[in-house]
Each structure stands twice: as structure tokens, then as C-alpha cells.
């Protein structure tokens, strides 16, 4: 403890002061910080992909397309973070809301839907998809309110299995396994998005993520965010202080699910196709892994976690095969790394739980929860003597 304090003390005063000032500025103008941050990240990433080694993996256009897909998972992780990270409700069936969002758009904007033929524009459908997913979030949340921990996880797992199963089996409505194809792509003021050009999707995705992130931060710092925290810490104490735990938890489920609805609408329009097998348990699990790896409760951390996991899974693992093949490494060249994706997830999670249980970029709060001994030590050292804090006398 003293060692790290010493190290911090030797840092140049000017640098620390600047960092602190930047920190306060970012805290007081959070929305602007997020927008500026995303503009910088969104312009820097594609440029970076023109430079080796990244440029050797795949073309810039493919990278941008990959980043857009990663953006879908960032959205999903941001939403699941509200449920799991803020309110502490373990949800193993989160992909269900993703599916609901995707099918909502597919029903409203595809000529191949068996029972109806509509073409509702993409942008309003983003909101509709979010609203429908939120409604199902309420419906899932309602029966689980009395459940906690393992039991809640099992019920949500069940819901996550039911939804794709319904889409699979209601083939008069959803075309079953064949899915719904020919979903209309978005257009904006007459500009038509196309499969060949990933840039418009990319820009739209970044904009949606930035907006969602601003909203999530606002929620976190609000009366509702505090109520979520209180419910996570001690439900009975929260109720005994006037927090309506029922509506608080329902709102967590609904608002968390709405983000998945957005992601679903976006995916459906981008792939122009939805089918039940896109929303398997593996998706729920991947999102949860992203949230845990990134750092539960920390909005930026979760976003980075989702980005890293998705990029590793969809780009790096695929690159490993040709890489080892060209080097002609014995044994390794015969392994299909994509096949071992979940083995690698598992390994990563196990290592994470052992070495850094709070995630890569933990929220300060989670870190405190998981490293209590250290904190209590600091408290003993720095806290004033209990008897020396005078009561106010009247």
C-alpha cells in the first residue's frame, strides 16, 4: 500500500494536476466527453487498420465491417451491464431480447414475411424494436422478482431458450429454420445503405453507441441508478428506505432489454436476414463474458471488453490458422482455432477470475467489493480515531 502511494507521490506534480483537471472536466461534461471520445476512436480505428500488421490481416473495408459487427456486441454489452452490473441481476438469456429486436424489424420490413408485407423505415423501427424488447424485458422481469442469484439465472436461461425455440417452431409466422430474408436496408434522406459499403453502417453504429452510452451514464448517476445500486447491495435495506424494489428491478430489465432491441434491429437490417440460430445460448454467454471481462458496472470498460472479445474471436482467431500454416509450425498448423473459441473463452474467464476478478477495467465500486481486505486496511490507516469525531451538541 505504502509502496504504491510512494510511487504516486514521485510523479511530476504537473502531470497529475493535468490528469486530475482532465478527469473533473470529463466528469462534469460527460456527454461531450463521450461524443468527442467516440469521434476520435471512430476515426482513428480505420486509419490504424491501414498500417501493418493490421493491414496484412484483411482490407480496411473488411475491418470496418468487423468493427460494425463488434459495435453490435458493444451495444449488447452496454445493455446487459445495466441488468448485471448496475442492478446485480444475473441474466443468462439476454440474447432473447436481441432476437426479439431483430424479428421485430424483420416483420416490419421484409417482403418474405409469411403473414404480412410491410416496409417501415429503419430509423423509427430502431425505437420500436427497443420498445418491444423493453416490453418483453418487463414480462421476463415480472415473474423473477422474488428470485435471486442462481434461481434467477436459471429462469433467465430458460427464457433465453424459449424465445429462439418459439421463433424456430412458429414457422407459419417466422418461416422457422429458414428465417426471414430480404430484410430492407436502412436509408437516410434518400441515401441507400448497401452491402458493398460498410462505412455508413459504421457511422450509424458509432452514433447509436455514443447515444446509448450517454443515456446509460445518465441513468447510472440518477435517482434510479442509485436505487439499482442499493438493491444490488441490500434489497431489504433498500425497500426499508423507500425504494420500490419491484419497479426498480423491472426498470433494470426493461431498460437493459431495450438496448438489445436496438442491437437486434441493427443486425437484422445489416445482415438483411434473421434466423433463430443467430440467437443461441452461446450469444448470451458471449455477451456475459464480455461484461465480466470488461469490468462489470463500468460503462467504458464493458464497451472495451466487448470490442476486444469480438475482434479476437472474429479476426485474430481466423488469422491464426493461415498464420501457423504459412510458418508451417508442426501441430499448431493443424488446429482450427475458431473451433476452440469457447475453450479460449473458458480459459480467459478462469484466468480472469483468478488474477483480476473485477475485470480488465473495473468500476471503482466493483473493485472495492472484491478487494475488501485492502480497503479496510486503508480505512484503518487513514480513518480518524472513532472517539475523536465529535457529535454535534445542541
Amino acid at each position, binding site marked *: 500500500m505504502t509502496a504504491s502511494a510512494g510511487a504516486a507521490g514521485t510523479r511530476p506534480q504537473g502531470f497529475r494536476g493535468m490528469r486530475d483537471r482532465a478527469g473533473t472536466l470529463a466528469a462534469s461534461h460527460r456527454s461531450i466527453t463521450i461524443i468527442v471520445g467516440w469521434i476520435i476512436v471512430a476515426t482513428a480505428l480505420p486509419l490504424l487498420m491501414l498500417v501493418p500488421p493490421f493491414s496484412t490481416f484483411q482490407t480496411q473495408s473488411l475491418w470496418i465491417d468487423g468493427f460494425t459487427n463488434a459495435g453490435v456486441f458493444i451495444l449488447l454489452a452496454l445493455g446487459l451491464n445495466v441488468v448485471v452490473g448496475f442492478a446485480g441481476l444475473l441474466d443468462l438469456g439476454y440474447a432473447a431480447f436481441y432476437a426479439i429486436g431483430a424479428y421485430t424489424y424483420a416483420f416490419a420490413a421484409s417482403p418474405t414475411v409469411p403473414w404480412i408485407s410491410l416496409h417501415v423505415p429503419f430509423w423509427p423501427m430502431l425505437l420500436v424494436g427497443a420498445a418491444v424488447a423493453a416490453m418483453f424485458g418487463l414480462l421476463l422481469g*415480472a415473474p423473477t422478482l422474488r428470485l435471486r442469484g442462481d434461481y434467477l439465472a436459471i429462469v433467465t436461461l430458460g427464457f433465453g431458450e424459449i424465445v429462439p425455440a418459439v421463433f424456430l417452431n412458429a414457422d407459419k409466422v417466422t418461416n422457422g429454420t429458414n428465417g426471414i430474408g430480404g430484410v430492407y436496408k436502412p436509408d437516410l434522406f434518400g441515401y441507400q445503405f448497401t452491402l458493398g459499403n460498410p462505412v455508413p453502417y459504421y457511422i450509424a453504429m458509432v452514433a447509436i453507441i455514443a447515444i446509448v452510452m450517454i443515456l446509460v451514464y445518465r441513468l447510472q448517476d440518477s435517482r434510479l441508478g442509485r436505487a439499482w445500486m442499493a438493491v444490488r447491495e441490500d434489497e431489504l435495506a433498500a425497500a426499508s428506505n423507500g425504494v420500490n424494489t419491484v419497479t426498480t428491478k423491472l426498470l433494470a430489465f426493461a431498460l437493459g432489454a431495450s438496448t438489445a432491441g436496438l442491437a437486434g434491429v441493427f443486425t437484422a437490417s445489416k445482415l438483411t436476414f434473421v434466423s433463430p440460430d443467430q440467437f443461441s445460448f452461446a450469444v448470451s454467454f458471449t455477451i456475459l463474458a464480455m461484461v465480466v471481462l470488461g469490468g462489470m458496472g463500468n460503462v467504458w470498460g464493458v464497451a472495451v471488453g466487448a470490442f476486444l472479445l469480438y475482434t479476437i474471436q472474429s479476426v485474430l482467431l481466423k488469422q491464426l490458422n493461415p498464420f501457423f500454416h504459412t510458418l508451417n509450425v508442426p501441430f499448431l498448423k493443424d488446429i482450427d482455432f475458431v473451433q476452440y473459441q469457447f475453450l479460449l473463452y473458458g480459459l480467459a474467464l478462469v484466468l480472469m477470475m483468478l488474477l483480476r476478478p473485477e475485470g480488465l477495467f473495473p468500476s471503482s465500486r466493483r473493485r472495492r467489493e472484491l478487494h475488501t481486505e485492502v480497503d479496510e486496511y486503508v480505512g484503518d490507516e487513514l*480513518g480518524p480515531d472513532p472517539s475523536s469525531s465529535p457529535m454535534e451538541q445542541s
Partner: protein
Amino acid sequence: MSAATADPGNGTILRAHRVTKAFGGLVAVKEVDLEIPPTSIVSLIGPNGAGKTTFFNVIAGILDPTSGHVEFRGDRMIARPIRTWFEPVVWVTPSVVAGVISVLVYLATANADATALAVLAAIGLLIVMFLAAIVRPRWYLRLLATAGVFRSSRPNDMVKAGMGRTFQNIRLFANMTALENVQVGMHTKMRANAADALLSTPRARAEEKASQARAREFLGIVGLRGRAGELAKNLPYGDQRRLELARALASEPTLLLLDEPTAGMNPRETAQMTQLIDRLRRDLGISILLIEHDMKVVMGISDRIYVLDHGELISQGSPDAVRADPRVIEAYLGKPAS
């Protein structure tokens, strides 16, 4: 502070009427009557396991009583649930009506679309009623009341009605700061909803800022000024007790339930806490119901004392009367050998 006073017509803040709570065969609280006049300190004492905390939990809306009821500020808030079997009927009725209509529509017009619409309406109504039963909005409670169904208020309803409480084993939000703990206590006094938060309306921002200032005031009242930024779990024990009190005060209660507020404190801290409780009553006009083992505290500040033993009220009255009551002495010290 704007702690509301009781209605002038009915002075009593809280009236428990023959409250009984049984867990299976074990009767934890048996037909207890209790009254709390305005701005008074009433103590509930008794040996360990006498049912004091169970009684507290009934009053606070955490447990439903087996029989009897509790009136808080003139409203009957807590009682044994009545006709709860009828509640599912209330949920289903609107859907059944819609279902019958859909059948009639089909028989009359043979129009499949109209029927489908009516069926969808039936399903929609079922979902709405189901959600209403869980969230319990005001119109739903009125509907239940007309159907003769009664359900006790939940803990958060009691807080909203003006009751604050602390716990025997401190239950702070350990990983939140002292300030945030108190702000959670102000939950019922704040108006900002999810939409306000999402849009970051000026109203919500102003309220948030005001709530921080107000929370600091409450910390000041209990003597925790300057510790607002500390995590609750890092505070020393005595300060944690005081923080819990500040959190309970933050809902601006008319009645404060304190469950052993001086447990585990040294004599000096106990004296300070006693003084503080007395001041709350005098300066803020709050009524206090106290569970306490420390007789010095109880005898010093109580206006009236109730004594529980094995769930039964064995004595009540002024401190002096209770102290002299042979049944109380017997409960605490046992029967003299004869």
C-alpha cells in the same frame, strides 16, 4: 425540517391492534396492542427472543401479521391479507370478458380478423393485469379494494407514508459512500423518474444537486459532517450506526423505528446517541419507537415503555411503573426461589 405532524383530529401516530404473528406453530408475537402518541419516545423492551424485532418487522411492512392490524397516521396500512384467493379472479376477469366478446364477434360476423383482434386484446389485458398485480399501481389497489381484497402495505409504502427505520445488525449499503447512503434514504422525497434521467432534464439536475446539499445536512445532524465521501463500510462502527440513522431521517419520517440503536457502543457513544435521539424528538418533532437492551437509555428517555416476553405484552406504562412491576422483574431475573 418539514417532518409532518399527525392529523389534529386523531393524535395517535401509530396504533397496533391485537397484532399476532405466528411462524407455523411458534407464536412470536401474541395480541400486542401498542399506541404511539405524537412526538413521544416509546420503548419496547424484553428478554432476547421476546418477539420485539418480529413486531418491528410487522409494523414496518416486512412481515404480514397473522391477525390484528396496524393503523399508521389514521390509515389502516397493515393487516392480515383478506380474500387474496379472489385476486387472480380480478386479474382474469377482463380477459375472460374480452374472450367471450371475441367468441360472440365470431358467431355474429364470422370475421376472422375481428376475432383475432379480440383474442389479442384478451391476451393484452391478461398481461396488463399481471404486470399491474406486481407493480400495484393506485388504480389496481382501488380495484382490489372494491373487490374486497386487502393486502398489507410494502416496506417502501410505509416509508412513503412517513416511517423510517434502522436495523439491529447495521444494514448500510456498504460499497456506497455515506452521502449516497443518505441520498438513497431521500428516495421517496425525490421525483425524478427514468425519463427525467434519460433526458437529463433541468428539473432532475436541480433536484440531484439539492439532494446532495440536503444529504450533507442530514449527515451534519448525526455528527458525520465531513465524512460524506467515505465508503459506508470504512466508517468506524459507531459512525455506521449514526449513518444508518441519518439515512432513516432522510425520508423525513413522522415515526422512527430504532432497533437497538446503541448496541455495541461504548458508554460515551451510547450517551451521545441517547442525546441525539432525544434531540430528534425535541427539535424535529419525530416520534420514536425504540427497541433497546440498555436500561439506562430506556429509562432515561422513554415516555412510555412496553415490555414483551414470549411474544406477550406483560407490562406497560411509565418508566417508573414498569421498573416496579413484579412481572417485568420476573421476566428478566426469573422467579424468586420459593
